[in-house]
């Protein structure tokens, strides 16, 4: 089951995001999942702040698997559908895939730092990870997802259903 992001943490920045359930779009659905990942990341940060590295490791593990599930749903479902429909295979989706590679590497390094109990290394990696992740999310939320909504209007119910299933399986 996809846990809805707590309303406090939703991105209130974007007035065009449909509030409530009147209309689910790829943008609103995937943005909610970004916020859920942010929440899980924040749990790990709080544990590190308390110097509880066992808890931090577990919390970071949850965050990592949520992120990986998100990437997978994009790389296996959303991006191929978008590419097939628009013919843009070397465009924005390719850039997002490259950033996924960078984010995966950062998460692996952070896991290693947590295992070693090295909070300085972890905080440096977490800082990089946060900014990388947020600017990546910003590009998806403001540019790529709206493009998906625009180009995939016919496929929307089917795509959303598949995304929902994939993000629940994790």
């Amino acid at each position: 089951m996809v846990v809805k992001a707590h309303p406090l943490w939703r991105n209130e920045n974007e007035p065009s995001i449909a509030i409530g359930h009147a209309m689910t779009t790829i943008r609103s659905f995937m943005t909610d999942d970004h916020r859920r990942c942010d929440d899980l990341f924040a749990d790990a940060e709080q544990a590190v702040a308390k110097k509880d590295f066992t808890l931090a490791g577990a919390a970071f593990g949850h965050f990592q698997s949520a992120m990986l599930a998100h990437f997978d749903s994009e790389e296996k479902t959303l991006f191929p559908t978008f590419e097939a429909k628009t013919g843009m295979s070397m465009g924005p989706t390719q850039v997002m895939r490259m950033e996924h590679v960078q984010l995966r590497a950062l998460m692996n390094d952070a896991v290693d730092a947590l295992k070693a109990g090295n909070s300085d290394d972890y905080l440096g990696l977490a800082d990089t990870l946060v900014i990388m992740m947020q600017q990546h999310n910003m590009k998806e939320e403001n540019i790529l997802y709206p493009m998906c909504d625009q180009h995939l209007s016919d496929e929307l119910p089917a795509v959303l259903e598949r995304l929902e299933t994939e993000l629940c399986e994790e």
Partner: protein
Amino acid sequence: MQALLAFENAPPFAAPLRFFLTAPLFGVLAGLLIAFEGADVFASRWMPGALAATHLITVGFMLQVMLGALIQILPVVAGANLRQPLLIARLVHVGLSAGALMLAAGFLLGLPQLLGGGAVVLGMTVLAFLIVTAIALRGVPTTSPTIRGIKLSLFSLFAVVGLGIVMSLALAYGWPLPFSALTDLHAGWGLGGWAAVLLAAMAFVVVPMFQLTPGYPARSSWWFPIIMLAMLVVWSAALLLDLSVLARLGQLGAALAGIAFALQTMRLQAKRRRARPDATYRYWQLGLISSIFALFLLSTAALWPTAAELEGWTLVFGVLLVAGGFLPFITGMLYKIVPFLSWMHLQNTGQAKVPAPAMNKILAESGMHRQMLAYGLALILLLAAVFFPAWLARPAGLAFAVANGWLWWNLFSAIRRYRSHLADISRKLAAL
């Protein structure tokens, strides 16, 4: 559309970097100027040294970083790609630096021709920047408060520079103008319409991003730029129509809008979810507290104009808002942006085959933290120097120069480390 997200569209690192590395040097110059001129600088806001130092900081430091950051960020947050960003950066950087030096020298030496010349160089530079930015932003829909804020702030930039040019030419040619009221308005458009609106537009993105706070509420972030500009329009119209009560109402409105924004940001920062407060967060706290005090002074003076005639009132307001508010906000952001851009460029050079060092390996937290303490000390000395200029003006100037020199050293060291990692990564890539 395809190219919108491409890394290739992020401008080369050299484009924004030249601005970021030059800005602290202007801070050093301003500090040295105060140390050299001594108590005279604090005698009144109209002293040649005070005007020169103010413009070294607002144009040489603030405008410098703001234009450099816009060149970097326009493609990312607005999808607005500047054509030939490196060429634009080079021209703007030279024009801005030369113009700021001429302007400051013109004020200091009392040479109206130099002053007018500096204003014209700055005016042409900013106009050129505005034209290329307008071309890049043409057709970009206003889908977020950030894009709206950027667009509106650029209008204010035009206003503040226009007013500056008119005043400097009036000084050069002896046109009779109400200089005192126009200077206030010039500062209002510059600090309120341009700097504060652009800062807010950036804050909507970077406060949640750097500190993992909730987002700004849609309504207030959508309206803040509009209210600020509306107040400045009211203030400007009141000046034209010679309605001083209305002008004060405009000032009050602008000050209250600023206070509301600062309080909102504090409220969000209180909900931040990062593990440890860092230099950026502390710099922002300093900036928010100083700005709130400064804007409280401004609102008081708008309601009760005689307050502004109290000894040191305007100087304290200026030091608090610019040295206590804007500079800490900007420095706090530079401390994230420079290491992040270093990391990003290294990461892309390594092509996921050779790993890039994390941000804290480029610029360590301890170095930033110590520089921040030095800056805090300089700020306290500057504020105290308003009241004890004979004793404290020179130490305050020196402390400000040292703190800015330290900022430069931190950023420069980060870039040196970036360069050595870059060479290292290229070597490793070639060996693969």
